[in-house]
């Protein structure tokens, strides 16, 4: 119970990993990379690796990184070029690089869906999507849902029904339920619950979200 050694300590200088990792064979390194290896060994590995990789690059391969490089994304009908590393998620590219902060990051693991955007009209978690994976797809964000400054009927319904409190989950809720209406203009309440079952709202606005979506579906089919 008391005085146990920590199971590991990444920020401690007591780590024994650095010495052991250096002794790993190449194959051992590759296996070890999936565990926890010390940074020095990894850096050596990367360098050796890149030379090999460059030599072997075939035709159907596009290389990214590790350094930042320009990448072009199609967002809300426009092209945007951003300089990003391959590890940059779509959510980070939108928010940090493009200042499109309507898309939120909250759990950063794909379980709260505050970061919902559409890839080719399909709702996905932009926090779990690498930006480079969004290349050549049509990305729609909350900023793009209103076309020609006309607020989407679902957004109007969210306001009418007060389907928000703090509002931090709202863009994600709107994107998830608007995608539902695109697929199914007349969903049941069960369909709505399913569509937002990956969206978390800590203020507890769900009943009004359900009402807002059903209101739109009962009054009009959404824009194609």
């Amino acid at each position: 119970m008391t005085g146990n050694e920590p199971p590991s300590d990444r920020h401690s200088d007591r780590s024994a990993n650095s010495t052991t990792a250096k002794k790993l064979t190449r194959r051992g390194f590759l296996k070890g990379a999936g565990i926890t290896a010390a940074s020095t060994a990894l850096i050596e590995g990367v360098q050796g690796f890149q030379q090999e990789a460059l030599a072997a690059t075939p035709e159907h391969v596009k290389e990214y990184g590790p350094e930042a490089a320009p990448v072009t994304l199609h967002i809300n009908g426009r092209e945007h070029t951003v300089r990003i590393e391959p590890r940059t998620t779509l959510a980070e590219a939108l928010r940090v690089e493009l200042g499109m902060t309507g898309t939120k990051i909250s759990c950063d693991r794909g379980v709260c869906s505050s970061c919902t955007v559409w890839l080719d009209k399909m709702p996905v978690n932009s926090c779990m999507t690498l930006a480079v994976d969004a290349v050549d797809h049509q990305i729609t964000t909350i900023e793009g849902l209103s076309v020609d400054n006309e607020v989407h009927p679902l957004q109007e319904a969210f306001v009418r029904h007060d389907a928000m409190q703090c509002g931090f989950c709202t863009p994600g809720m709107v994107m998830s339920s608007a995608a539902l209406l695109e697929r199914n203009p007349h969903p049941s309440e069960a369909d709505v619950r399913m569509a937002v079952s990956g969206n978390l709202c800590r203020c507890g606005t769900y009943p009004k979200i359900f009402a807002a979506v059903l209101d739109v579906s009962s009054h009009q089919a959404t824009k194609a």
Partner: protein
Amino acid sequence: MAIHPTEVIPDALMSSSAGASDAASKTVKMPIGIPDFTLREEERIVPDSEPPVLPLNKDLKYIGKPTERWDGRAKATGRARYTADVQLPGMLYAKFVNASVPHAKILSVDTSAAESHPGVKGVHVIEKILGNAVLRNPSLEQSRYPLVRYVGQPVAAVAATSPQAAEDAAAKIKVKYEPLPFVVDMDLAREADAPLVFPGAADQAGTAGGGGSAGGLTQTGNVHGPAVHKVGDAEQAFKESDVVVDAHYTTQVQTHSALETHGVVADWKPEMLTVYASTQGTASVREECAAFFQLPMSKVRVITEYMGGGFGAKFGAGNPGVVAAALSRKTGAPVRLMLDRQEEHLSVGNRPSSDQRLRIGAKKDGTITAIQLISYGTAGCGTGAGCAGPATNLYKWATLHVEENDVFTNAGPAAAFRAPGHPQGAFALEQSIDELAERLNMDLLDLRDRIDENPVRRVQRQIIRESAIWKSRHATPNTDAGPIKRGIGLSQSVWYRHLTMESAAEVRVHKDGSLEVLSAVQDIGSGIKTVLAQILAEQFGVPPAKVEVKVGDTNYPVGPNSGGSVTTASLTPAVRDAAWQASQKFLASIAPSLGTSASDLSLNEGMVRSKSNKFQPMTFRSAAARMNTDQVTAQAKRIPDYDPKKYDTYGGVDVAEVAVDTETGRIHVKHVYAVHDCGRPMNPTQVISQINGGVIQGVSYTLFEHRLLDPNYGIMVNANLDKYKIAGSFEIPKIEVVLTESYIGQSSTDASGIGEAAGIISAGAAIANAFYNATGVRIRQLPMTPAVVLAALNKPKPQMEAL
């Protein structure tokens, strides 16, 4: 009625001065009670400067009417800018390095590798940690760096040109620890030979949201307390009782889990420190920054345009605030420091656990002879685990014996969390009251009618008695055959009329007829912006959407910190007073050009009229064009309640219907019928939204949420949002809200708050009582997961001892 002893209400929350006024005053008649039930009039003596008594909601045009959220469109379109969204030119991104061990002395922090990492502009090693309880005698600990008392305690931070560079560099900071014995389990921490979290007595101050503990309590080992509150001789009273209900309850630690994590963007310039903060109190952030850096208050500006949820945990600058400011000072650039989800779970607050032994003694007629509550709870390395509010304040008792104890553990410090102490306390009390009714063979509502003196809850119980849901309740438990059993139960709640006089606003009328209201108050999602717009709308007869609301900036008149349900009750009278005074100044400014005097003019429902018929009624807007100045302004600050001797409590009664799957142990909450009191509802739309939210948060707390610390390493194993489980769309019951519009004659708006009383307090007991009604089995442990439910159902049923 007294607040129970360890609930620390900071001075700022309490009406400070007595008496309505020393200046000239007038006597007015105010509506009191609940329309259709108990409405009557009472006289109040109020200052002459107060506006006319506000009529009942039914006689108003904008106040009290369902009103669209003022900033709803900004939120629905993603245009609303939260702290997390703030981007300033040259802004750096900061990342914390957090302790990986639960208890240790830091021997050294090697930042050299981080400092030379590309993109890094500054590194800061923390020398003063905020949030933890503080040793009364600091000399008991000699250490260059703050002692680590929990896994996740921030140690240092890096600021770099990109989030990725900051993350990479933070990983290069090497911290050398001297590990110390630790304890994370509360029961083990209470043992005599447990490792000590603090080497001596320590206290944690409360915040504007509550929490913390009374200072000066005894401390034995890790047990801080008890805070004792005794009235009469409870032991003797138990002996003289006809029935004694004696039960043991436990509740878990819950984390706030706001979707926007804690964080700031701090911009330190020689002339001014500007802090964009995700906070419930712009004033509290300013105060802490000024104190921490010894800056004049006038040199600190705090801005909160939008904030993504706080629930009690977001007061003051906290560690993220002061560290970002320090890094900004060091680097000369704005610094953004937003916590990640794991840090949010670990280091910025939680609702303490509880272990409660509750005894209630009663006479055959239900009269309560004695209530005794001995409670322990852990607020980690903080305090504030008291939970005797409901036991002390909900019912009339002849004798009382309360002992509340905080138990220090090596876990992150608690913070105020929506109705601090009350969900825990009500979970126990309201089950025991049901049990008492059963032992006395009394109806649940009849017993409460006998022992509950609150006039509003009496009406609420009447509404429940007549409701379809209550009428459909099985009279005897465990009626349904088959594995799915239906049950209905209820619980009451109590909260208090906390106010802060530090609530002010300025109202501006422009010559073009446009209107502004300004206050430093922040809108934490409960919708105060909309309410302020409604007040001006009512005064000037323009739609609320046409009113410009400017809040969340300490450049404006001081606003309340939003904790303890103070905001609406505290601020709206000041705003109405300012609006009223501005309207009077406005009439004075148009009178000359209309060839009359201000006293001849009136402004009602958007029309300016001459009492002597000097001109045809004209609209407010066209009258404004006749102002003899470009702008009239009025500022007002909250004055004390009209009758501050009268101490009001609020509450509600919630009925829950559950379907218990007795084979899977899953409790489905199907329907909640929530009858609630928030004084005069200013905007019923938003009040209902808050009650929905309180109920849902309560369901989530009752059934799912549980912070889990590994006992052997002190590490939280579910510091995420998939294994820290929060109610989602499929767990949402049908919620019906009934508002008991109640007037208490206390201010120019007579509004109260709803945040705390909104369902979070009573959900646990209502569900547990419904579970009992469904199954005939009591669950006295939270959360009621399948494991807990199946264990309870598996136990042989004890024979009920009848009276």
